[in-house]
């Protein structure tokens, strides 16, 4: 699997270009469209294109996780919620009212991007030594479960907590009235 090593080192392949183009395109749609459904779909699009990028970089394990968990579960959850609450498209009626807010946030985001882009040439190049090879899934798992064992269990409890919270809040607000 060493040819994958030079994937990061070499020039960006055509596939990479296409995937990054799609990623950016879908991100734009999420930002531009006023209809939540198209936003949700665009989000799934970005997720898939980033997964493609991961594959192009050679980290197939993460790509797979991305597709399975991120695109499969979270994006679907979004679409489900949008469908459940069938949110009407928000016509940008009081655009003039929010124009200063738009401009200001655009300015801030642009500034952030500028700062980040300025540091782009500091991004380290891949080292040529071929000794270190792309890790396989088992190696990731072994490292992950040994080094981050406690955080892993904590993450488990975290998710449990989130579910518990969701149920509690839902039951509380919709269910019986507490004594004031």
């Amino acid at each position, binding site marked *: 699997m060493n040819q994958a090593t030079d994937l990061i080192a070499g020039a960006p392949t055509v596939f990479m270009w296409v995937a990054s183009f799609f990623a*950016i395109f879908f991100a734009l749609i999420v930002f531009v469209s006023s209809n939540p459904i198209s936003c949700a779909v665009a989000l799934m699009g970005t997720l898939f294109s980033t997964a493609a990028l991961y594959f192009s970089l050679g980290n197939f394990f993460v790509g797979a*996780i991305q597709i399975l968990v991120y695109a499969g579960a979270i994006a679907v959850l979004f679409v489900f919620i949008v469908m459940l*609450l069938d949110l009407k498209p928000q016509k940008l009626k009081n655009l003039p009212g929010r124009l200063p807010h738009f401009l200001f946030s655009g300015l801030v985001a642009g500034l952030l991007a500028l700062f980040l882009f300025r540091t782009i040439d500091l991004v*380290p190049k891949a080292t040529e030594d071929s000794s270190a090879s792309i890790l396989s899934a088992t190696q990731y798992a072994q490292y992950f479960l040994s080094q981050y064992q406690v955080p892993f269990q904590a993450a488990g409890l975290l998710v449990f907590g989130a579910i518990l919270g969701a149920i509690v809040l839902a039951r509380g607000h919709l269910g019986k009235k507490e004594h004031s």
Partner: protein
Amino acid sequence: MIATGQLIFSVAIFLFCFGALTFFTKRSAVVALMGIELMLNGVNLVLVQAGQIYKNAEGTSLVLFVTLVAAAEAALALSIFVILYRKYGTLTLENFRSLKG
């Protein structure tokens, strides 16, 4: 031509900043949350790229954790959105401004 690393990094920055922009400007809470997801994607991209450069598993494990946390957060946030929608009938963030000053 720019190197792959720089291409990936610039895509990541783009996603990150656009995620932030969506979070700031979108009037609906759900779409704002999507903005957060975009930002997290950007971060994941940087992590994976760094993981490939340094060839160790730190990046990947953090991506896993990020994905997990994003999932938990999404679950929680969306349930709150459902409740808010039931109570208020709308999800635009403007009218959740009673706590201010």
